[in-house]
Structures are given as C-alpha cells and as structure tokens.
C-alpha cells in the first residue's frame, strides 16, 4: 500500500507510472508480515485438517487391510468351518511374544469413534508409530498384552496425524472397544475417563495408580492429549475385558457386517 505522499498529486500529474512504481520499505515489510501470517494459518489448516484427513484414511485402510489379511490367514489354516458363533471360549488367548518396535500386532476398533476409525496398534509409543501412515496407535512397552490380566495400555493422537482417539471424550459407559489380533477378538467395555498431568505414569500400572497391587482384572487403558489441540494434560479412558472369541469364530456381532467390508 503506497503511503500518503505530499507530492503525490504533482507526481501523479507529471509522471503517473513513476509514482505508482514507488516501493516503500514499510509497505514491503507489511506485505511480508501479511504473507507470513497467511502461511502460518495455511500450515495449521494443512496439519489439523488436510494432512489429518489423509493420514486418517491411510491408517484406516492399513488397519482394515491387516484385519482382512488375518481373516484370510485364519481361513487358510482352519478352513471355512467356523467355530460356533456364540459360546464361552474360556480364558482369552494371550500372545506374550515380544514384538519389535513399530510392528503392528493388533487392531483397535471403537464404534463410538465412527466409521473408518479402525487403527493398527504397533509396539512402542514413539512418533515413528504415532505419526505413522500405517498404524497411528502405539502400545506402551512393558504393559500387558490384549486379554492379559493387568493393563493393556495404548496411546494415539487426539488431533492431527490421523487422530486415532479424536472422539475419546465421547465414550459412554459400556461402549465397546474391540481389539483384534491374529488370535481373535477381545471385547472391552468402556468404564470411565480420567484427566491427568503428562507425567502420571500411574495410569499404566497393572492396577492403575496402585503399582504395588497384584492385578486380577483384564483392563485396557487409552491415553491421548487434552484439551483438544493442546498437550497440557492427558485424557485417559479405562475399559474392562468382557469377552473373547477366537479368530475362527469371526468378529463380534456388532461389527461383523462392517468388518466383512474391510479389505474388499
């Protein structure tokens, strides 16, 4: 924007093109600052929505692809003769084998989080897992495995990078949290939320906040950041294992129809 110039009228009268071409330092600085502001807003839009949506779609596709692959492998092993769709399968099978950092060994599916919310769970909670296009949910090393007595603790982003736990605050009592592994399906039921500071590692204990106690329950703990778009606190969601069924029994009834479309 040209600044008011006492000579503007005479200059404009004598040589209009020369007057318009005058560049002021303040004017250029102002335009640079405006440009910088626009770029920062554009970056935030890219990070929080554009890239978030792209990563969410890719993580979702990767998870459903892995789920379909496991179903295929199970059919190859056990044939089409499915185990009875209902029944008591006893204590859950627990895979306690070591998983390398970044290896996807489970899939999380929470109907409350909406369609396409399935995410692969990989070992480790570094950014190589949480910001990955293939997984997005990380398992805290040292915490228990799906179905195991104690605490199966996992973490994911709440906003950006696919936001695997974007809707975590919407969980309601008894909402299902399904965990699929090669072995089968673990059905957890949501119990309650907790808000803690980022150093509250007590939530990862086999009995949360009571590291001295011996666990008897099989629980799941989801951790993400709080408030939304901030990292000041952590939001924690707890659930307890309700049931387990082997892979040959197929997915739980509530999500069977949807799972059937995965990998199609």
């Amino acid at each position, binding site marked *: 924007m040209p600044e008011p110039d006492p000579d503007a009228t005479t200059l404009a009268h004598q040589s209009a093109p020369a007057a318009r*071409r005058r*560049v002021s330092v303040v004017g250029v600085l102002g335009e640079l600052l405006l440009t910088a502001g626009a770029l920062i807003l554009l*970056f935030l839009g890219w990070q929080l929505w554009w890239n978030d949506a792209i990563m969410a779609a890719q993580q979702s596709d990767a998870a459903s692809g892995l789920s379909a692959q496991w179903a295929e492998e199970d059919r190859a092993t056990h044939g089409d003769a499915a185990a009875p769709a209902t029944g008591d399968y006893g204590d859950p099978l627990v895979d306690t084998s070591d998983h390398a950092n970044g290896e996807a060994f489970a899939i999380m599916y929470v109907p409350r989080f909406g369609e396409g919310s399935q995410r692969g769970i990989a070992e480790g909670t570094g950014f190589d897992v949480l910001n990955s296009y293939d997984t997005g949910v990380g398992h805290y090393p040292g915490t228990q495995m799906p179905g195991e007595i104690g605490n199966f603790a996992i*973490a994911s982003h709440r906003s950006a*990078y696919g936001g695997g736990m974007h809707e975590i605050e919407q969980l309601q009592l008894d909402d299902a949290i399904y965990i699929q592994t090669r072995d089968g399906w673990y059905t957890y039921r949501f119990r309650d939320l907790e808000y803690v500071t980022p150093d509250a590692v007590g939530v990862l204990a086999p009995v949360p906040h009571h590291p001295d106690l011996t666990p008897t329950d099989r629980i799941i703990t989801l951790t993400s950041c709080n408030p939304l778009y901030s990292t000041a606190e952590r939001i924690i969601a707890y659930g307890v294992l309700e049931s387990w069924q082997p892979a040959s029994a197929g997915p739980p009834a509530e999500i069977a129809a949807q799972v059937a479309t995965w990998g199609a």
Partner: protein
Amino acid sequence: MYGALWRILPGPVWVRVIILIAIAAGVVYALFTWVFPWVDGIITPRDVTVEQ
C-alpha cells in the same frame, strides 16, 4: 511487492486474475506437498503419551 507483481503480469484484468489464481494454486500445491511436511518434521510433534 504484490503491486509490482500485478504490474508485471500481461494482458487485461481477467487474464491477470487467472494467472494469479494459477500461481497461487501452484504455491499452495508446493507448500502442501513439500514445504509443510518438511516443516512438520522439524517442529516438535504433539505429545500424547504419559511418561516421566
């Protein structure tokens, strides 16, 4: 700066507007494809885990 850009562009107003839109689209594409992912890797990602 932007005034100079406007004057450098040839043709009538509607041609200049189309050229500017094309330039802006190219700039946004380059930002989204190369610049922002690079910047994102440099600035600290959002932390979601509990740790000591």
